[in-house]
């Protein structure tokens, strides 16, 4: 049943997981697991939506906890320090950056849906304007005394970006900067929570996700949790910044790969702290990141690739605490077998691991 007539793994996974989640819903004991499943369903839906999206409509964006160099990574790709970067959390709302082929290289246009007016001006001033927008939103958030969630707020900036490593023949689309997403892991801090929700909403619309971590914060639980709960099934490209801080003998990419259980080929280590310049190593890193993004966009919608991704997400879900509560759940084996039949070798290995882990935990 492989090859031409293999079932659509995403459709299959979508209904199976939805069914799982709906069965669990009525039982409060499974609330955590249910949430994880729902997140996995959201990721599968995201993968499905990505299909057939026109090249120019594609969104490539960063995702990760606060202070993981997300904006810096995008600045590196843009070739200009456009997105404001600071030691304290900076990005409060989603910022879209588009390529404007007819714009003058030193001008920008800005559309601020968060309440401001459309602007245009000198590119060198764009960063300052974005900073203003961020501080305004931050202030509103701290001062707001109602609990009502805000609507999506986003700012769009477009320019020619002459030095950009992405806006060339290879990649068309929009770059998206997002706030820190750690608020989605649960917090009492209202601002963190609002930013997390905005980050998640923005990430769900991406077609290529760059998951950002820091090499000096390897093994931080929040990073692993964000990865596992929100985007493992999307198999994001992992961008590990602060490569210049790495002092151990082991290859940093291999360490990241081991930790997040992803192939080392999906990890790019860059010195993104300053967001610009860098030596030969940095140049090679940017080159490899751009290559990965291009490959990522090209692979969207391939059945075996999709199935592998879903299982990868499931594999993650099973390693969490939630598993303890899965004892009572029965697996509709037939569906999983069908899913398996649509996998490539890599995916089968993931599935094998998943089931073995499940059985081990059950036996304990």
């Amino acid at each position, binding site marked *: 049943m492989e090859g031409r007539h293999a079932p659509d793994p995403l459709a299959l996974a979508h209904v199976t997981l939805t069914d799982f989640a709906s069965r669990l819903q009525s039982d409060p004991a499974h609330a955590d697991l249910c949430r994880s499943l729902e997140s996995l369903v959201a990721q599968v839906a995201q993968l499905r939506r990505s299909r057939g999206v026109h090249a120019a409509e594609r969104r490539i964006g960063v995702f990760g906890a606060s202070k993981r160099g997300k904006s810096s990574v995008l600045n590196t790709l843009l070739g200009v320090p456009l997105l404001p970067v600071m030691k304290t959390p900076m990005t409060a709302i989603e910022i879209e950056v588009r390529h404007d082929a007819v714009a003058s290289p030193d001008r920008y246009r800005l559309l601020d849906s968060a309440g401001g007016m459309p602007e245009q001006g000198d590119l060198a001033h764009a960063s300052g304007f974005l900073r203003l927008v961020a501080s305004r939103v931050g202030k509103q958030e701290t001062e707001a005394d109602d609990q009502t969630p805000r609507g999506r707020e986003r700012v769009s900036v477009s320019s020619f970006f002459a030095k950009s490593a992405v806006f060339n023949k290879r990649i068309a689309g929009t770059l998206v900067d997002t706030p820190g997403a750690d608020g989605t892991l649960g917090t009492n801090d209202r601002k963190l929570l609002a930013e997390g929700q905005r980050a998640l909403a923005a990430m769900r619309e991406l077609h290529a996700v760059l998951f950002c971590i820091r090499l000096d914060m390897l093994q931080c639980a*929040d990073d692993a949790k964000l990865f596992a709960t929100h985007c493992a099934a999307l198999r994001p490209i992992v961008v590990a910044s602060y490569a210049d801080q790495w002092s151990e003998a082991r290859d940093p990419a291999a360490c990241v790969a081991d930790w997040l259980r992803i192939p080392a080929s999906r990890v790019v280590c860059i010195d993104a702290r300053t967001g610009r310049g860098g030596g030969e190593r940095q140049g090679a890193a940017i080159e490899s990141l751009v290559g990965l993004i291009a490959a990522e966009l090209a692979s969207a919608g391939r059945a075996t690739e999709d199935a592998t991704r879903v299982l990868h997400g499931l594999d993650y879900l099973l390693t969490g605490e939630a598993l303890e509560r899965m004892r009572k759940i029965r697996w509709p084996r037939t569906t999983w077998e069908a899913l398996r039949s649509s996998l490539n070798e890599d995916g089968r290995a993931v599935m094998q691991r998943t089931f073995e882990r499940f059985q081990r935990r059950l036996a304990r």
Partner: protein
Amino acid sequence: MLEDMNRTRLELCDALQEVAALQEKSKQPTLAAETRKRAESLRDHRFRIGILGGMKRGKSTLINVLLGSANDTLAPVSVIPATGVITEFEGVDAGSPTTVEVFTREDTSRSTTIGLDDIRSYATEEGNPGNEKRVERIRIRGNFPLLGSSATLVDTPGNGSIFEEHSLAATQALSMCDVYVLLVSATIPLDRMELDYLRQISERERRQFVVALTKCDELEASDRSAVLQRIRNECRNVGLEAREIIELSAKEALKSSGRSDIEQVHRRTGIKRLVEEMERIIRSESIRQQALATRLREAALDASRYLDRALESIHQDLAIASKSVDEVVAQRAELVVQFKKAQSEFASASSRFKSKWNSMMQQFAASSKGLGGRVEAEVEEWLDAQSGVAGSWKASSGLRAQIARRLGAALSMESQRTQEKAEKLLADFNAEAADARDIPMASLRVGSDTQDKVAGGVAPLVAVGSAVGAAGTILTQIGAVQAAALALSQATAAAQVVTTSQGALAAAWAWLAGTSATSATVAAPAAVTVATGALISTAVTAVIYSGGAVIAGVAATKIAAMVITSRAKGRVAEIVEEASEDAIKHMVGEDRISGSLGEVRDRILEESKQRFDEAREDHEGRLAEIEDAVRGKDPALEARLREREQTVEELVGRLMPISSRLPAGSGGAV
């Protein structure tokens, strides 16, 4: 002042031990253990400084500098690279040997002494992955000049590290400390966990804390004020005041240990400032008094809360014990009558449920049998509307889509209907069972000793509800219909492979049944086994799948037949026909579906009945016990209760003056 308080402390310890003894007598071993632990920690009172901070904040580095800077016994400390458990550093008088003790979760009162070299295999993730050795804490006693002989430094496991075990332990440790040093990395000023730490501190009575900002050497001057401002703002947001933020560069300080200009290095790196601040806190009598007072107040409050509850329940028990025999007997008789009534209501609810379920099963069986034919007819009609069979076969993708769509729609509608029906039936049954078990148990007032038992008796009754609820959950598996419908459309697509001599049905069967069998006759019984042999939930899913598979089979047969008539491949037609006949016999046969859905039904009924019976037995047993006591079979009950009442009152009497002697609490920063 401190001496007075220490006397009060010892009195409180004794009182707590007696409370624990009382709790043991009342068969509350967990509570008793907790109280004893509390008494022990009060008796062994030391001033505790908690070092809080996420991973990679330079916590261990800092502790090494703090504890090792002024003497040469750095080694014991430096072997702790990553803390996976709580590590306590207890300062003891100079001259005492350094000892390491490990406390496990099984028995927190006893410890094992280990060598310094063994710390690694208990305190690190490498040596003790996932804390498989169940270590609760490690206590290192040594001569640490900073700590003197009465302070303890508590190193919490790195919160926010990937291992959840660590975070849990850190939260526990938080409640055991008198003063906190919150370590914040200048490169990540206050992340999610640190904000939560601040909130936790703000909710405690002891709110003293010092913010130590590490990795300041990585901070550019332009960012410094923004970072400091953020920390101050966030503290203010939770109502705390960060009076001083001590900026550190601990790494540099550690690198320079042993150097002659260590003093200067410490001054430059902020270490000296932190040490001074900690010394001030450790040596300050008023801070220690405050801390001790808070702890005493907490302990006294807990003890008196417990005693209040105990007294209340004793009084309730006494109320029962002092009831007249006639009263209790009458009450018992009434309850028995009510139980009987409940039982008959329950029985009739069960039988109503059973018959409705049966008719639902029949309807489902009948309509799924008809489904294949209906879809077949629809597809045929569609084919007729096209320009002949051969023409539409060429447009095979159109045909595929048609069949997939129709099959999906038909099956999903049918199963949706069945699912809704089943859910409704269960909800009704649940409601009726709830009515039946709604016996006025509260009419019998019960006290603490009896409460547990009665609660145990009621629990199974309540569980009837949840058992039925769980069955409801299982039933939503009929919601797997969506998956089945989808699977069907896939299978139908697969059926297009019929032009090869392998046989599409065989493949479709194998695919749906999840077996690798290539022959339909092998695959079909395999699917049946899944349906009958598996547990309830799987069974329901399997029923749906079976039904779906048959419909797919029928449709595939039809397609095959159409293709075959034009291409005359007799062998394929034979296999296909044989397979579908076989399948219909096995799958849609009324026995199969009703067998599986019937299993679900019987299981629900059986389970709820069992629970109902258990509850009745428990409850009656309890009634008999009370009755026996009242009838005088246990004349000592009342006396025993009176005696306990007296003990509790005596303890309350002792605690009251102790509590009144404690100074009033006050929070605020150091």
